[in-house]
């Protein structure tokens, strides 16, 4: 399926959000995820099934003012 991850279009066979994170080698307990503009909690990623053309945001801590 085709997903838009952090603005980049890519193909993946992952079916859930946690599978996609694994496939893209995202790891660590500091990530936050959203699908189509809605937060997906860490504990819900394994159950969150993805659809074709879903827009996925994967954010991480960064310096800020």
């Amino acid at each position, binding site marked *: 399926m085709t997903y838009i991850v952090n603005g980049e279009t890519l193909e993946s066979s992952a079916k859930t959000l946690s599978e996609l994170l694994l496939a893209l080698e*995202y790891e660590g307990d500091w990530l936050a995820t959203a699908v189509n503009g809605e937060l997906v*909690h860490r504990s819900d990623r394994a159950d969150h099934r993805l659809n074709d053309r879903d827009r996925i945001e*994967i954010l991480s801590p960064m310096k*800020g*003012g």
Partner: protein
Amino acid sequence: MLTLYGTELGSRMLLGTARYPSPAILAEAVRQAGTEAVTVSLRRETAGGRQGGAFFELIRELGVRVLPNTAGCHTVSEAVLTAKMAREVFGTNWIKLEVIGHHDTLQPDVFALVEAARILAGEGFEVFPYTTDDLVVAERLIDAGCRVLMPWCAPIGSASGPQNIAALRTMRAHFPDVPLIVDAGIGRPSHATTVMELGYDAVLLNTAVAGAGNPALMASAFAKAIDAGRAAFEAGMLEPRDMAVPSTPVIGKAVFS
């Protein structure tokens, strides 16, 4: 003691974590400032997420509270989603709410700010709104559930210091019981002293410290300036007057002619 949403902080200086020459210098600046709360952000991470992880570890090691921001958000929906994602990562209800309305001045879109604040307060967030010095907007933010206000004193990163002392003074007088933090625009320790003398509860700094030739030394200078301004406010200052007043008593003065 400064109390923000029920949390007591020993320092009246909040510090941003951006634009330092290195992570080690950031850490040293935080230590020199004695700050107990730092602002952080969220950004898209490249696959692997290791850069964010390293920064997260550095912040955890500092042992201070974090105040995540919604920097760079221009709409209510962006700001609300970013706040929720920040809560997921940092595990705090605190959020420095920024909704930017203008590219050049980075001034807040106060209409979107009030709307986003209402939504977030309703979802249990403790909102620190980056706002202007406008009294009516401040009232609306309080109505929306904000218990802290963070007016600018000049545009973000401008280092130009308080541009409208009268407005800051009015805001202080109008909200005697609301913690007021000057966020944005401070360039020098004397600017910080000025707003603290007006009775502001704290100052949030970033560029003024991070961009200094020696950030750690500047952090220390700001900490002293903020303490001095606060002590002066608590001590009660004289009002300026036009005519001279002799400081040495005139009674008992010798008469030579």
